[in-house]
């Protein structure tokens, strides 16, 4: 090729310069450059997953600090200010550091494989999306050590409390800007990959569900991340440049912040669950050995959830004092979401119905997901009823609700996905017994932790409280015990499942470890080679097999 490309022979490219000339070579770059300069979707996917797991640990430790403090009434370890910082940073780190990046990691790994593409559409931008998260995460975590401590206004960062925060608030705001930019670029990449890089014959309506859910999720992300950026930019200018967006003295309105935030915030929670639905929709048919029931309605249901998510945001604001019409509108709209979500649940059941089921570890997690997520969905519906929400808004009931959908929903689905595709990533099978221990221990301890929180909320215990009346003591203690149990279960998972797999210890995984699995990812060896589908594969009629 041309002389133009030879210009690259400057520092930093070193030994791998030949990669530029020949994009079809089959050996991976090595050493630290492989990871830091990565342009390979699988490597970047791995980076995302490791990052997310690290953040899960950090967010988890913060959660355990919260639970330790709430183990008994009376301040035990921390002062209330520090407690609020823990709550805030736990929420932010879990949402933006753990769950979202983990799903992006899955997208990176799986989408090109599933649609028969060689890589993501913009490989360098892909790496940029990843590396942006590192400085942002450093800023977030480092804010604990800034004067005045970390932001302590809740993950929702409501004004005007944010106006009282110290300098770490600004660090937090900039970190969120960067994370937003990262998400937007990542989403553009995913959308373009899906729309433009599918192998011939892989029509949209033949695409695996995981790719579909991510297509819709990416759309949601692009639509709402900028809105969050707008909201926190206004916070920033209110803090430092004399504007009065959220200050009534100058004609602004604190509630305006909430509207803008939740216009982002509600779609955000579906951003964290739709890819989970995608993963479950891949796993259930595999282990039922039966095609996914109602593929088309699955797609439509996902799209409906996404569209409805834009018109329900004020269900987080029933207690702010909306007019009757506002309350009714947002109540009705919110309740409607139960319908498409129900369609998904029913489709999974119908997929299982008269299948030929086995319960390997991924399937256990999937069934666990369906069971526990539905409970969280129902409590969501209870929250959606405005008169009931007046009682439970800002209490532990809401905390219970969203951990049912986020931990037992998003996180369980992520675990399911790790067990399902892990053999493809690493080339080794995990130890099934350990996987089962991880599952059962998590399922039980999860419920021990979060089920009593429903009671606490109904009985009137407000959230974000460092201390509480003694009448709430027993359920809090149970919750704290459950939380530590749950936390240690995840340490077990890391030490005894993840580490061995990453070090290649274990039975060698066959190309298709699951009997009923269909799809292009199972058409490549395990572990998936560095380069896959460099030339577009020729597909069979259902676009699930490579025929040439």
């Amino acid at each position, binding site marked *: 090729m041309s002389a133009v*490309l030879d210009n690259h022979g400057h520092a930093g490219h070193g030994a791998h310069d030949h*990669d*530029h000339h020949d994009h079809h070579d089959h050996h991976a770059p090595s050493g630290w450059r492989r990871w830091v300069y990565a342009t390979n979707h699988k490597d970047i996917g791995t980076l995302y997953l490791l990052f997310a797991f690290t953040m899960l640990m950090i967010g988890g430790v913060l959660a355990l600090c919260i639970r330790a403090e709430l183990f008994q009434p009376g301040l035990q370890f921390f002062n209330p200010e520090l407690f609020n910082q823990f709550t805030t940073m736990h929420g932010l780190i879990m949402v933006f550091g753990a769950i979202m990046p983990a799903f992006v990691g899955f997208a990176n790994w799986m989408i090109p494989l599933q649609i028969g593409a060689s890589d993501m559409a913009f490989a360098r931008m892909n790496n940029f999306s990843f590396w942006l998260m590192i400085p942002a995460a450093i800023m977030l975590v480092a804010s604990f050590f800034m004067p005045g401590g970390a932001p302590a206004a809740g993950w929702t960062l409501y004004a005007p409390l944010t106006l009282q925060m110290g300098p770490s608030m600004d660090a937090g705001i900039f970190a969120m800007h960067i994370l937003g930019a990262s998400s937007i670029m990542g989403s553009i990449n995913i959308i373009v990959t899906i729309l*433009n890089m*599918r192998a*011939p014959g892989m029509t949209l309506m033949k695409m695996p569900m995981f790719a579909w859910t991510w297509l819709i999720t990416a759309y949601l992300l692009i639509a709402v991340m900028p809105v969050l950026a707008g909201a926190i930019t206004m916070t920033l200018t209110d803090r430092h440049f004399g504007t009065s967006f959220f200050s009534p003295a*100058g004609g602004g*309105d604190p509630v*305006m912040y909430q509207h803008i935030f939740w*216009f982002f915030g509600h779609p955000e929670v579906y951003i964290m669950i739709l890819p989970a639905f995608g993963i479950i929709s891949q796993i259930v048919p595999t282990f039922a050995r039966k095609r996914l029931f109602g593929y088309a309605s699955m797609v439509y249901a996902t799209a409906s959830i996404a569209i409805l998510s834009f018109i329900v945001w004020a269900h987080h604001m029933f207690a702010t004092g909306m007019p009757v019409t506002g309350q009714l509108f947002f109540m009705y709209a919110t309740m409607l979401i139960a319908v498409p979500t129900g369609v998904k649940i029913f489709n999974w059941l119908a997929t299982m119905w008269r299948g030929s089921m086995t319960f390997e570890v991924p399937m256990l997690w999937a069934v666990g997901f369906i069971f526990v997520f539905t409970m969280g969905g129902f409590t969501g519906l209870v929250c959606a009823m405005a008169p009931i929400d007046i009682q439970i808004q800002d209490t532990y009931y809401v905390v219970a609700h969203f951990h049912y959908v986020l931990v037992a929903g998003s996180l369980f689905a992520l675990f399911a996905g790790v067990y399902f595709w892990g053999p493809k990533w690493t080339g080794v099978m995990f130890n099934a017994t350990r996987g089962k221990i991880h599952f059962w221990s998590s399922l039980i301890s999860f419920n021990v932790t979060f089920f009593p929180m429903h009671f606490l909320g109904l009985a009137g215990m407000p959230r974000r409280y460092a201390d509480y009346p003694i009448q709430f003591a027993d359920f809090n203690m149970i919750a704290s015990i459950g939380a530590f149990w749950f936390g240690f279960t995840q340490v077990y998972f890391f030490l005894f499942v993840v580490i061995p797999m990453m070090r290649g210890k274990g039975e060698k995984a066959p190309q298709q470890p699951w009997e009923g699995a269909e799809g292009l990812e199972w058409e490549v060896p395990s572990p998936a080679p560095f380069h896959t589908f460099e030339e577009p594969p020729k597909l069979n009629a259902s676009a699930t097999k490579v025929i040439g």
Partner: protein
Amino acid sequence: MSAATSTGKTPYYFVPGPSRHPVMAAIGLFFVMLGAGQWINDHDWGKYSLIFGLLWFFMVLKQWFGEAIRESEGGQYSNRIDASFRWSMGWFIFSEVMFFAAFFGALYWARVHSLPNLGSMENSLLWPDFKAIWPSTAAGFTASPAGTVEPFATMGPWPLPTINTALLLTSGVTLTVAHHALIAGNRGKTIAFMWLTVLLGVTFLCVQGYEYHHAYSELNLKLSSGIYGSTFFMLTGFHGFHVFVGMLMLLFITLRLQKGHFTKERHFGFEGAAWYWHFVDVVWLGLYMIVYWM
């Protein structure tokens, strides 16, 4: 999907080799964030970190884009890549639309909900003297509920914003002329009209700068002029920043045109910048009507 087949030496998929640009750019942004966050909290050293970070970031971008341009000119990009760029530019502009939507939303909420609320009977408990008039200052009325905002005059549509509207609209036309000239293979004319477009963009920015100066020095209209000042400067300032970025894009495209880049058939770099410019243009029309007229 249009299934472009691989033609000759152009690979079907283009997958770049390992690249240090992303991580370098991220490091640059780290210093930007760190510096900005410290500077606004009265730590002067933040300024240096900010400047250092920005310089670093732009150096990286220069290398990165340089590499991409070489790849493009080197024939590495197939039609498929071209389509990818189109999609991505479209979605990027959509994200920008949503960014502006947040600020327009703020303006809408402030005018249609907060203001009447602040001046309502109920709220007279808190702000007995406040009259809900938009803009929240006028002779005889309190400038803000708490009376903390100094009196100011509002910015009308005449004459500066109207001149600016004319400038932007004209620049849209000159850009289109340049595009047609490019398609017709008339490079000289393309370049001339591109320079004209860039110049119009720069003029717009100068006029806006003058408008701000006028606001601060003569109208006493400032960022701190209550919600009117907040929304006015946030919307027009954010837009002005976009004009600046769009102008830079056009400038670089023009320089590339002079270097002989782009062909009649393939010039998405040009088109992408043009899309962006038109987007900025449309946002301005919205601003012009909603912020200045209404």
